[in-house]
């Protein structure tokens, strides 16, 4: 079975420091890591290879430093890695990214299964997987929490829902996006990492010309959506103290929460109370 695993190098957004004065994000010193859910996708791919035989190829797109996650992936059991790196790819939205990855997959050739994390922690969009599946015209299952069985033509998986899961029988070739309850990823084997560093041939770097795309089709130029502005979320505390009788204080509190521009959380807070 030929398995492709999509991985992305991301800044560790769970370890972000904010400038205490301005509240702006401090990018300096942010660690770069393999996107957490992609790690689970890779583990799943390696396990299938170990059980059924075949080959695991990882595919990544990013600046040259993303070679680090490719090396780590080989340490975790991938056979080969392909890194798409070209300044022309920079600033891509998910439309341009899925197109670029699609062209790369066509360049790489045969595959039965494509695995990727549900979403990357820097963008949180969860869009590239399904968009790539559509570009390649193959079936997709997102939010996969368990792989039950597979043969050469079908795979049976559990797909996580808000309040449970569904079991899905899916035709191959297919693209699955996975969540972290799927498995526990192994650590990279240091010997394999050293081998990967020495024998550079196992990591191929491709640019725009190698996969046959024009620069106008990829990166910021090939994108359909654009960032108009960015700003820091307003984290100023309101500091409203309610000091009266408890019953009145609480209804006043709930009123304030529902009236405030405390959009997501507080309406979610209110909404969560209206669930059946």
């Amino acid at each position, binding site marked *: 079975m030929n398995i492709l695993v999509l991985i992305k190098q991301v800044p560790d957004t769970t370890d*972000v420091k904010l400038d205490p004065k301005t509240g702006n*994000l401090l990018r300096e010193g942010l660690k770069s890591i393999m996107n957490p859910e992609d790690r689970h996708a890779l583990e799943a791919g390696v396990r299938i290879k170990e059980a059924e035989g075949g080959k695991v190829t990882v595919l990544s797109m990013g*600046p040259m430093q993303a070679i680090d996650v490719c090396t780590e992936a080989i340490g975790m059991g991938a056979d080969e890695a392909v890194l798409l790196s070209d300044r022309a790819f920079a*600033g891509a939205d998910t*439309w341009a990214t899925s197109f670029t990855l699609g062209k790369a997959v066509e360049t790489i050739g045969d595959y039965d299964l494509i695995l990727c994390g549900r979403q990357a922690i*820097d*963008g*949180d*969009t*969860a*869009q590239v997987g*399904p968009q790539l599946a*559509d570009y390649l015209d193959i*079936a997709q299952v*997102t*939010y996969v929490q368990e792989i039950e069985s597979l043969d050469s033509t079908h795979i049976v998986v559990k797909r996580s829902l*808000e*309040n*449970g*899961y*569904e*079991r*899905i029988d899916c*035709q191959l070739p*297919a693209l699955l996006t996975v969540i972290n309850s799927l498995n526990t990823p192994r650590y990279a084997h240091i010997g394999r990492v050293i081998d990967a560093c020495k024998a550079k041939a196992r990591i191929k770097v491709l640019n725009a010309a190698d996969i046959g795309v024009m*620069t106008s089709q990829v990166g*910021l*130029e090939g994108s359909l*959506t654009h*960032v*108009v*502005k*960015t700003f*820091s*979320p307003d*984290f100023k*505390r*309101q*500091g*409203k103290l*309610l*000091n009266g009788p*408890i*019953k009145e*204080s*609480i*209804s006043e*509190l*709930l009123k*304030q*929460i529902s009236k405030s521009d405390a*959009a*997501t*959380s507080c*309406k*979610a807070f*209110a909404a*969560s109370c*209206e*669930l059946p």
Partner: protein
Amino acid sequence: MSIWIESDLCDGCRRCVKACPYDAIAIEDGKASVLDRCTNCSACLAECRNEAIKSDAVPKEIPDFSDYQGVWVYAEQRDGVLAKVTLELLGVAQELAEIRKQNVCAVLLGENVGNLAEELIRHGAEHVYLADDKSLCQYRTLAHVKILDTLIREKKPEIMLIGATHIGRDLAPRLSRRVGVGLTADCTALSIDAEEKILLQTRPAFGGNVMATIANRYSRPQMATVRPGVMEVRPKEKNDGVITRLDVQLAESEIKTKVLEVFQEKRKHTSITDAKVIVAGGRGVNGEAGFDMLRSLAEVLEGEIAGTRIVAEQGLIPADCQIGQTGKTVRPELYIACGISGAIQHRAGIMNSRYIMAINKDPEAAIFKVADWGIVGDLHDVVPELIEQLTPETK
């Protein structure tokens, strides 16, 4: 395409450094310079007072989209029950449609779901497209994509909104690629730009540390998924929508997936670092019984329970639920501190919370200084009352 700086014109004012969303401009020897990580996004260009920033970009032409009309909502349902986000989408769709002077339409797919069309109309849909067929009994990606793609190409809506649920986030990206349009994920605010008349889509990025406003100028419909719980439901008094039934022709072979079974589970507990709502207790909580009460509150809010170092050491909460300097740093949407005085070590772990609510007997407690809302009172009286007022039956 690239961006560069004419250093003769640059006075080192740092405006461009601040404007850059990617932190890709640095000041070296008093002059700005563009770093490798520049994505050519052009956000800096307008900021420069001296016109020192140059770009060789040719502005992309925006096609004429005047024949695209209507604000559409994907009506998500499961087992004949509409997802709450569907009604919320109809709420914001009405606002957008009023500004654009266009209609609100809903697209409803399923088996024996015709009765839901009335509910959609009562919540703002002027037109409901209904696809009712056995093959649509359960949500399946490719079935829904095919029907929606055909309909969108035929009717040309200007805006298409989908809930950012497990179904919506599966459907929307695939549909956007099929139709050939851009898509913005997980929006928390939508508005119409006064000049360009385009949809401005605001969403959290970078793990919620940055907000980004995104435009979709080059394709129609402008598509976005919207977070559940953000938009307001706006029921309509008039009740006169049109329902159009669609002809459904789907072959099993083109759907490629089968749903074998659906299981409902009791809510799974998530790690406190992923929790949207956290109810935390401190020294002021009266032992096991007190924490049981906090657990009921967490249950009502679908949140998780946590606590300070003291209560973790007393074994009242598991060690991995300790928050603060020596415990975990959390960033929930809502943090409810009960009987927590707010020592600096604890505050360090909660400052990235979106909203903080505190309950404490002592009006001088430090926790109130970092809270959005504070209630002065004994938590053993306040929490039960809060649970009662939050429980729908008693509303």
